[in-house]
Every structure is written in structure tokens, then in C-alpha cells.
């Protein structure tokens, strides 16, 4: 694969409807199969009102609760008749609905998806039942100490921005969800609008097939009210630390977050942090070799900068074999980042990181569904499929000096939050 090769090598047809709905069609060699993604540019980041954390995710559940024309049972029957894989997910910045089915089902898919995005209707009793399924979703992860550690990390690290809560939301808010029926209608009215949603259709289709269907079924969708601003997070002033009590068995764990920049196709700091994460935490890194292979104090370690709409965290996770080594491992991580800040890395190693990242993406783009999944993330964050190529072009421009600079700029003690899990039943 040459450096000049496009990271996202598929031809794309894009169209914007008069109501602002943007549609992207990517013909892909997946005989007889189409992936249909509806991307709402709203996630837990948009839960600005107190007491409403977790609502974007809850609302994702409610979208399966029917319309006057397609009540739940009828909607489910249509999905079943298609033999479709249909589901949805919510993250900090987006809610994505996806259907994977035979291409012959495309007219039905467009019909039922356009219908629920415009005419969702549910009564309070089923709203309440679904609220309890959401609590069940929280509870299924509650035996994993990492769920609790992540909650604590973001709660401690953010003061005003909505990244303070996880996508599932604060447990107290989840428990209260059955009482928020009226707010749920407001949420739909506010965010499920054509100027806040993108459609991505990937697979054995052409734009000529797709566009007229979309225009017919989504053309009457109206834009909605102004959406509230998301508060800006002030700079962190001092290190925050917390420990999570855990009565059951577990390896001790260390979770660290440093405030880091938002995703961008022009500001190089984010992708430079992505490179840094590879240099410090990849399995072939000196730190991994030292802590995991040679000293055998750590069972698993990783670190990542992930793309977000607003500045989020560079996170580091280590699962450590014995509690006595928690402080040692934490110090070793900081030392290694400081070493990179001082010494940088070789040009060859940097080139290998870029090669690794490009091949990793090429490996991901192996089915219509996976192409759509990658496309959906970039569309939700940047609003353009071309942002994939732009991001990888930016990545190719990262220099050793960029890596040194971000290693010293973002990893100072005042900018970090540390959460420790030291199980009681050791």
C-alpha cells in the first residue's frame, strides 16, 4: 500500500435534501447485501440538563418502540421477515442505528426507518418497561470493576462538560428514567431532526437506486428547534485521585486520564497523541516489554487517544498482578512518556506506526457493514466522509518533534486524574 493510496478507497455519492438531511451512498462489493446506517449526531455529550444523563442511550432503546404505522410488533416482524441484523449503539458523541440485510429489502428498510425517525410514538407504560431494560443493561456491566472505574474517572476529570458522565449515565439518573416520559418527547423533538442526522448506505447498491427512495420517504421531515450548547470544560488545575472499593476478586487496576484535544482534520495534536499511544503502549513497546514480559508485574496495559467532538481524555489502563506494584507501575508509565518527550523516537519507528495504522484501517474495511461502521464514526464526528482521508493524511505528517511536543504538553501531573482499584479479596 503506497503512502499516497487513499485510506478510504471507495467512490462515494453524496446528496443533501432541501430539509438538510445528508445522504451518503458507497457502492461496495458485497453481493446481495446492504448496510443502512442512520447516524444521529447526538450522544451522551448532549445531555446538558441535570438528572438527564444516559438519555441519549435510553432514547436509542425507545426508537424500537414503534410508530402509529409500524407499532413495535409490526416493525419487528418486518425486520424478522428481512432476516436482517438490526441494532443500534450510543457513544459520547453519536447514536447510530444500523440494519444489515439483503439488497432486495432496501425499499422496506428506507420505509420503516424514515417512518420511525419522523413518527415515533409510544405510551408511558412501555416507556417505563424499556427504562428497566436500560437498568438491566447497566446491571449487566456492574460486576466488571472497570465500569465503575470509568464512571469515577470521568466524574472526577470533568467539572462542567457533559463528558462527566458515561454514556450509560449516572446510576441515580438511570433509576429515575421511568419518571422522564415528558422529557423523552422533548429529546426526540430536539435531536431527531434532518439537520442532525446523516444517512450512510454501503453495499450492493447504486446512488440511482437509493436516492429516490430517500427523497420520497424523508423529504417531508421538518427541521426542529435550536439545540442547547454543550458547556466548555475549564482547564484542570490539579491532579485528582480516587480509589474504587471492590469486595470481589479482581486484579488490581490503574486507570489514568489526561485531558487531551478534540478530533480534528487540521490540528495535528490528536493524531500525534495517537502515534504516542502506539510508541508507549503497543505490545512491542519498551514499556510493554519491561512491565509485561520481563518484570511480569503487569498482565495488560494499553493507552489511547480517541476521537471526540470536544476535548476528552487520553486514557491509560493497566491490570497489575499485585497491589504492591501499583505505585511502581504508575511511575514507570510517567517515566516512559517523559522519556519520549525528551528523546522522541526514530524516523523508522514513526514510519512503522503510520504503516501499522493504515494497514489496520485497511483490514477493518473488509465488509459492507464494517465500511459503514468506520464511515459512521467519521461522519458523526466531522460530517464528511472525506475526513477519513484527511485524518490519515494528517497522520502521515506527524513528525518526531510533534510527538515530543505532545508528550510534554499534555502529560503533566496537574492535567491528570488517577483511579485505582485495589480489591479487598486479594
Amino acid at each position, binding site marked *: *500500500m503506497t503512502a499516497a493510496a487513499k485510506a478510504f478507497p471507495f467512490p462515494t455519492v453524496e446528496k443533501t435534501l432541501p430539509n438538510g438531511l445528508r445522504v451518503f451512498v458507497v457502492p461496495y*462489493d458485497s453481493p446481495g*447485501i446492504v448496510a443502512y446506517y442512520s447516524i444521529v449526531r447526538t450522544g451522551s455529550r448532549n445531555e446538558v440538563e441535570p438528572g438527564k444523563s444516559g438519555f441519549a442511550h435510553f432514547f436509542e432503546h425507545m426508537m*424500537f418502540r414503534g410508530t402509529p404505522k409500524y407499532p413495535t410488533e409490526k416493525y*419487528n*416482524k418486518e*425486520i*424478522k*421477515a*428481512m*432476516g*436482517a*441484523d*438490526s*441494532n443500534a449503539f450510543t457513544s459520547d458523541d453519536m447514536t447510530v442505528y444500523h440494519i*444489515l*440485510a*439483503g439488497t432486495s*429489502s432496501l425499499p422496506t428498510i428506507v420505509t420503516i426507518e424514515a417512518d420511525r425517525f419522523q413518527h415515533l410514538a409510544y405510551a*408511558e*407504560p*412501555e416507556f*417505563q*418497561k*424499556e*427504562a*428497566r*431494560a436500560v437498568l*438491566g*443493561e*447497566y*446491571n*449487566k456491566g*456492574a*460486576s*466488571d470493576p*472497570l465500569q465503575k472505574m470509568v464512571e469515577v474517572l470521568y466524574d472526577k476529570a470533568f467539572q462542567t462538560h457533559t463528558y462527566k458522565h458515561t454514556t450509560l449515565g449516572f446510576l441515580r439518573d438511570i433509576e429515575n428514567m*421511568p419518571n422522564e416520559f415528558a422529557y423523552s418527547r422533548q429529546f426526540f423533538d430536539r435531536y431527531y431532526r434532518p439537520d442532525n442526522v446523516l444517512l450512510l448506505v454501503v453495499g450492493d447498491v447504486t446512488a440511482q437506486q437509493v436516492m429516490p427512495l430517500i427523497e420520497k420517504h424523508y423529504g417531508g421531515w421538518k427541521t426542529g428547534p435550536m439545540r442547547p450548547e454543550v458547556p466548555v470544560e475549564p482547564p484542570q488545575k490539579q491532579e485528582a485521585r480516587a480509589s474504587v472499593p471492590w*469486595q*470481589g*476478586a*479482581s*486484579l488490581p487496576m490503574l486507570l489514568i486520564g489526561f485531558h487531551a484535544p478534540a478530533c480534528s482534520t487540521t490540528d495535528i495534536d490528536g493524531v500525534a497523541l495517537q502515534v504516542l499511544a502506539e510508541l508507549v503502549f503497543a*505490545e*512491542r513497546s519498551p514499556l510493554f*516489554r519491561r512491565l509485561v*514480559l*520481563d518484570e*511480569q508485574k503487569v*498482565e495488560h496495559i494499553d493507552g489511547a487517544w480517541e476521537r471526540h467532538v470536544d476535548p476528552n481524555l487520553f486514557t491509560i489502563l493497566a491490570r497489575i498482578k499485585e497491589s504492591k506494584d501499583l505505585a511502581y507501575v504508575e511511575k514507570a508509565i510517567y517515566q516512559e512518556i517523559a522519556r519520549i518527550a525528551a528523546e522522541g523516537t526514530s524516523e523508522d519507528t514513526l514510519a512503522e506506526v503510520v*504503516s*501499522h495504522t*493504515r*494497514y489496520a484501517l*485497511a*483490514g477493518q474495511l*473488509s465488509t459492507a*457493514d464494517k465500511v459503514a461502521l468506520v464511515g459512521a464514526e467519521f461522519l458523526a464526528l466531522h460530517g464528511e466522509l472525506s475526513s477519513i482521508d484527511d485524518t490519515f493524511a494528517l497522520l502521515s505528517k506527524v513528525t518526531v518533534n510533534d510527538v515530543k511536543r505532545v508528550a510534554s504538553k499534555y502529560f503533566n501531573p496537574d492535567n491528570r486524574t488517577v483511579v485505582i482499584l485495589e*480489591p479487598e*479479596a486479594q
Partner: protein
Amino acid sequence: MLLSIAFAAGAPSAQAATSQGLPPMRVIRLPSPHSPLVTIRLVFQVGSADDPTGCEGLAALTAAMLDEGGTVKRTRTEVLDALYPMAAEIHSYGDRDTFVYAGTVHRDNLAAFATLLSEQILTPRFSVEDFTRLRQDALDAITKTLRGNDDEDLGKEALETMLYRQHPYGHPVAGTVAGLASLTLNDVKRFYADHFTQDRLIVGVSGGYPEAFPDAFAAHFAVLPALGTPRAELPAPQARQGMDLLAVEKESLGNAISMGVPIDVTRADEAFYPLVVAASYLGEHRTFNGVLMLSMRQKRGLNYGDYAYVEKFLQDGWTTFPLPNVPRRQQHFEIWLRPVPPASTGFAIREAIFETDKLIREGIPAAGFEATRAFLLNYVDLWAQDGSRRLGYAIDAAIYGKDVLAELKARLPTMTKKDVDEAIRAHLSTANLNVVVVGAKVRELAGKLTAGQPTPIVYDTKETPADVRQEDKLIESYPLPLSASHIKILSASNLFEK
């Protein structure tokens, strides 16, 4: 259509490899010349069922030494260094009867990746350092992670110890604490020599590879011994009379539930295919249309999901589809209920059994049969979307002698409700069900269930419809064949010791 091509491309090649006097390994090819990616799958028909008694975990530790240890030529770090620029990973997993090494790589990097992979399998370093690390990782995986970090996985593993009492399938693939503690590096070396042999190996290659690649690659494995220790016949799972309940007591917000019973059917059998329809009707994995999902989650808000299976199901990453290459010589029927509120645990167990019994007693409703059949006819196409998964299914077809995807596509159009009902009646029963609950208030629950006391659902939501309330009354007192002598209450720390 792709699926039948997949099988046609795989099976004749496998026969050709053996009939021409080549090594007894099988080679399966699945060309896709336009793809920039190539997948290699090495499937060894070696699994935790091959663990010698007292050495539980030996097969998995040996398998891990191959792909997570170094090679004679390279340390672990050097292996990782070589893999890194091509973003290639040797993905390995295992079960009772197989271990799999799989990797997908851009064709630019195929030669280098193939060299590394064959080096890993053929010339493992077997260093003391790797052995110490990987054995400790396995022990931690059982004593720390499985016991303390995931109640649902804990329930599923505990269920297998009940389904397969005193049986080679009856311990976790990772092993037991005592088994792992007893192992030495020499045990690993011996096990490797005796079990990682050509007769147990299937080499699969799919994607945009050069035509000569599969044979040239497979030829590397001719250095393995041709024949290894013969596979021991599996005993029949122990017959039980009545229901058994294992309650794993721990603090929890939600109680995880798994239940199941061995069945004498695999993909090799005719009855398997109508049973797939029955299980899909009851609860296709991670879909919203199953009877259990509709009645437990949608109508009652009990939990996040409820599913049914007629063979071991391991989910492939974040997809909703099964991981290929987890074939078993013996299978079981399983129901998985995602965590439910502790106060409604008894109700949830009764409801799952109530719905299953209804299916067994009344058969699949005609409309449900037609809808499920139509669903599966399309849905199975999604199980083999990429080259790696297509190859996995072609290898499974070689193992079972039947390609599950091609069989379903061929059989579903002519399958009848009667076929499904007969298969259900012949092979499914809840009379001797094994049930595992992991969570809170389980002691009190066990007492109520053995005494035949009602276990009503606790609602904190408005306006449950009258017909649901009426059904609740039936379910909360639904009789279970459970006696006090068939109840075991343990703490998580007691599980998987030996």
C-alpha cells in the same frame, strides 16, 4: 450462493490433499482474487477435552505458548516487532475440541506474515519466562477475572461444569487452579509433541492470495509428526433426574442466569437443523424477536436480553454472529438470561422454563415457524460476510461433514412445522435442566423454589397490561422439579479449584 461455493472450494481440496499421499493434514482454499486481504486459519482439533486428568489447563497453556510466546529464532518482543508494521495479529482462541490461530493480513504482507505464523507454530521457544508468565495469566484469568469481573461469564462456565460432570468438557478451557498449579514446562513440551500433529490440523486460506500459496504454506507443516495421540472417545454426559440448581452467592445489582441440558445432536445430525429453527424462535442471539426477549424484556422490562442456543455459542467480537471453528463432538441446549433484579430472579427462571415448556408441549406456532424460517433463510447469509468467516465455516464443514450454512439454505425451504415439532419433542426437555444463578439473595431463592413457593415479579413501573399480569400469576408458581438435594450454594472462590 457464496456459501455453497465456499464449501465446494474447500472440500475437494481437502480430499485431494490426503488422497495424493500428502501429509494427513487437510488444506482448505477459498480464493477471492479481487480481495486485497488474505486470511489464514490454522485449526487444530485439540482442545481442553484433551487435558489429562489433574492437568486441567495444559492444552490451553500449550496453545498459548505457541502464539503468545517467542519462537526459537525470535523472542516474544521480536515477534511483536515483526508483526507490528503490517498491523497483523495472530488471533487465537480455543474451546473443548479445537484451538484456532487466525490472522488476516493485507496481501502486501502475506509472505512475511505466513513465515511468522508458521514459525510460531512449528518452532515455539518454550522459554521458562514465557511459561511462568502465561501460567500466571491463566491462573489470574480464573481466580481474579472469571470469579470476580464478569458474573455472566462466570455463570456460563459454571453451567458447563454442571452439564458435563466428570466429563472432559467439564472444566474451563483455561483449566482449574489445581490443574494449572501442577503443570511444568516439560508437560507443555510433551503435550505439544503428542497433540499438535498433522492429523489434527486443518490449514485454511482465503482471499486474494497467489494461486500457489496455500500448498506452499501448508507444506511447512509437514515437519509436524504425522500422527499424534489418538483422540479419546467422549463418554456420554451423566444422566440426571430432576433439575439441578447451582447458586453462586455474591453481592450484585443484577443476577446472571444460565441454564441448559446436554442434547445428543450436532450439526452432523438431521435433527440439528429443525432445532436451529426452534432455538431461533425462542431467542436468536442478540436479536429482538425471540419469544424470551419479547416476553421478558419487552413486556416486563426484566432485563437487557434473553437468548437460546442448540450448540455452544461464542460471540465473534462485537458482532451478533457466532465465532466459527468452535465445533464440538457433543452439544447442549442453553438459555442465557442477562442479569435480572435479585428480587425477580425466581420469576425469571420460571418464566424461561415456562416458555420453553410451552414450546415443547404445544410445538412451534405455525406463524412463528413461517416467520422464523423466513428470517433464517436471509439471516444465515450474514454469518459469512467476510473471507475470514467464510473460511471458518468451510473448515467447520470439513469437521462436521456438513456445511451448516449450505444445509440451512437447502433445508429451510422444504422444512415443515412438523419437522421442528418432532425434533423439539425428541431432543429438548426441561425435566433435567441445570440452572446457575450468580448473584445476591440466592439462598433465600433456593429455599423458595424447593418449597414450591411463588416467586412473583417485582414491578416498579406503571400499568402492566392485564393479560401480562394474568400470565405472571401462572409463571410465579410454575412448578419446578427441584429438590433440596439438587441445590448447591457456593461462593465464587470455590469454583474451578480442581
